[in-house]
């Protein structure tokens, strides 16, 4: 009924009292804005975490040397700890034997030796790196994307060759894209001195969701991969504390994890303190996603309370407005307005307030989310359903909280209303 006229009337009314209209909308703006911001940031974090986890691979199973007795609270799981020695760790030969036995089910195995952070230099420029000694399986298991050259091969590892695979980010920082770095040498300052490597490959650096929040772009360390055998030359231990198995896509990762546990429990049968245990990434991924979802839902619920308060604010102002306009309502009734017309007029006004507030809130929310997301170096995910739901929800708030004042207005007795001072 007279929708166009009612909308025009509501807009004129709001314009004539801008400050009040804005203050009324503020609750809705804050409510909708925070819901949109929280949901958007939550979505961005979830998407990024899922990306990272998927990058690590849902088919990946981590196999760790772990203490047999959980109640042994004094254990020290770091390599070189008091009660863990070389014989407790897994040797490369054992891993190779395992891989051979289950070659039908295993797509690749990766193990590594971390040398910690270092500095790559070429005389004038330097770049921060994390040096990892890895095996040839690392590329596949960890989804390394090569942009130039090749990854490390079994021959590099067997021959203890001084070769390295570096990130494209390091290339752009150090070589400025002038020359083809493949075949060039690079000096790396490591904890135990300086080593020179020949660059054989370049991989595409993927920004991690977790890292890179507070570090300047140039100082951000990227991984530099060298043959694990070279890294082991600098290590006190020749065996490994853990390795990663990537199963073939046809293999069920969960049941294969049980096979791994059985296989290694035999090997560790005579070890009183330690055994090997397999952890599947899939379960870790779903639990992380679950936690993130729970957090966003909880925060969104708190924001919904802000929305509720905003709605009550709208109702309050609408009640004031009905009282202020008692004479107008009386006049309208005398001129032939049915009660339903009056009710509609006030509901439309409340809906318009909430709708405008909601739209401003969406814009504010997206800006806030954009700010937060870029601060966290994440990708912005604008969820259209969330926006549509917010618009719909703010209109519902208008109808819900506008109904009572509108009902009150429509029920006014025209005689009393006309006489109202």
């Amino acid at each position: 009924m007279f929708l166009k006229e009612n909308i025009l009337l509501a807009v004129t009314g709001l314009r004539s009292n801008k400050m009040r209209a804005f203050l009324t909308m503020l609750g809705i703006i804050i409510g909708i804005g925070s819901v949109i911001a929280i949901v958007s940031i939550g979505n961005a974090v979830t998407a990024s975490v899922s990306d990272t986890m998927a990058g690590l691979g849902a088919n990946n199973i981590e196999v760790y040397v772990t203490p047999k007795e959980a109640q042994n609270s004094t254990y020290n799981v770091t390599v070189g700890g008091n009660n863990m020695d070389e014989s407790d760790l897994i040797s490369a030969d054992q891993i190779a034997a395992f891989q051979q036995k289950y070659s039908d089910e295993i797509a690749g195995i990766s193990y590594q030796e971390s040398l910690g952070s270092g500095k790559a230099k070429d005389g004038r420029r330097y770049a921060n790196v994390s040096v990892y000694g890895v095996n040839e399986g690392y590329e596949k298991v960890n989804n390394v994307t090569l942009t130039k050259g090749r990854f490390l091969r079994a021959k590099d590892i067997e021959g203890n060759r001084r070769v390295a695979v570096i990130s494209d980010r390091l290339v752009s920082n150090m070589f400025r894209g002038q020359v083809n770095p493949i075949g060039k040498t690079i000096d790396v300052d490591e904890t135990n001195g300086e080593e020179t490597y020949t660059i054989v490959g370049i991989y595409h650096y993927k920004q991690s969701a977790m890292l890179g929040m507070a570090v300047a772009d140039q100082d951000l360390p990227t991984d530099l991969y060298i043959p694990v055998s070279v890294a082991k030359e600098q290590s006190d231990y020749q065996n490994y504390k853990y390795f990663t198995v990537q199963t073939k896509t046809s293999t069920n990762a969960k049941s294969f994890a049980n096979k791994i546990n059985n296989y290694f429990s035999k090997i560790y049968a005579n070890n009183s303190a330690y055994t090997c245990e397999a952890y599947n990434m899939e379960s870790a991924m779903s639990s992380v996603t679950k936690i993130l979802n729970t957090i966003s839902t909880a925060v969104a619920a708190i924001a919904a309370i802000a929305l509720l308060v905003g709605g009550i604010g709208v109702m309050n102002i609408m009640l004031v407005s009905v009282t202020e306009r008692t004479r107008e309502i009386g006049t309208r009734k005398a001129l032939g307005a049915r009660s339903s017309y009056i009710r509609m007029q006030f509901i439309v006004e409340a809906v318009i307030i909430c709708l405008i507030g909601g739209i401003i809130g969406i814009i504010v929310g997206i800006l806030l989310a954009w700010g937060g997301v870029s601060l966290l170096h994440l990708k912005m995910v604008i969820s259209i359903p969330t926006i549509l739901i917010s618009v719909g929800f703010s209109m519902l708030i208008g109808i819900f909280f506008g109904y009572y004042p509108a009902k009150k207005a429509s029920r006014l007795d025209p005689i009393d209303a006309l006489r109202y001072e």
Partner: protein
Amino acid sequence: MSQDIIQMKGIVKNYFIGTPNELHILKGIDLTVQEGDFVSIVGASGSGKSTLMNMIGVLDRPTAGNYMLDGILTSKMSDNELSDIRNRKIGFVFQTFNLIPRSNALKNVELPMLYAGVDGKTRTKRAKELLELVGMGDRMYHQPNELSGGQKQRVAIARALSNDPPIILADEPTGALDSETGHLVMNLFHRVHDEDGKTIVLITHNPELAKETNRIITLKDGAVISDEPGLGKAVE
């Protein structure tokens, strides 16, 4: 002047019914007004003339009695039906003008037509004609707060005429105006009466104004105490 447009029989209005404070405002009023008449209802404060006006304007229902308006029995009608009757049969003019704030003169005159379901183009055309008629053609887009009292009342009269109702019900239309402007407004009523043949019911406490009408009905304590002819023309 043949048909009875207002026929009231034994109209009683009581307030606070059934309580010790029960008030008897109208005590069985019989009133007949012929179509095209110009009638004034006078009486002191508390005589019941406002209540009678509410009855005539179907803003209120009588406690007892029958009211036929333009041949329609209104006493048992629903609220929505009464709204429609007010919309089409009666043009209200109030002492305090009661223009809708933040709506310009044109929108105010269009309002009764909007409620009657008249389409936008026709509304605007007729509202403009009416504003020209009352001499407000050059102030159509002014807000009520930009108009003087006399101008506001002229807009209100144009509004009362917008659905072409047979009856104009004016409650102290000059009460808030100075005497000169009041005369201008009264002349407008005379014009509407003479040229359009509208039935006009004027409620006033001012005997000078009442004299200008065709018929003067005096109320006292909720009953008609006199019903006499007036001069029927503007006093110069």
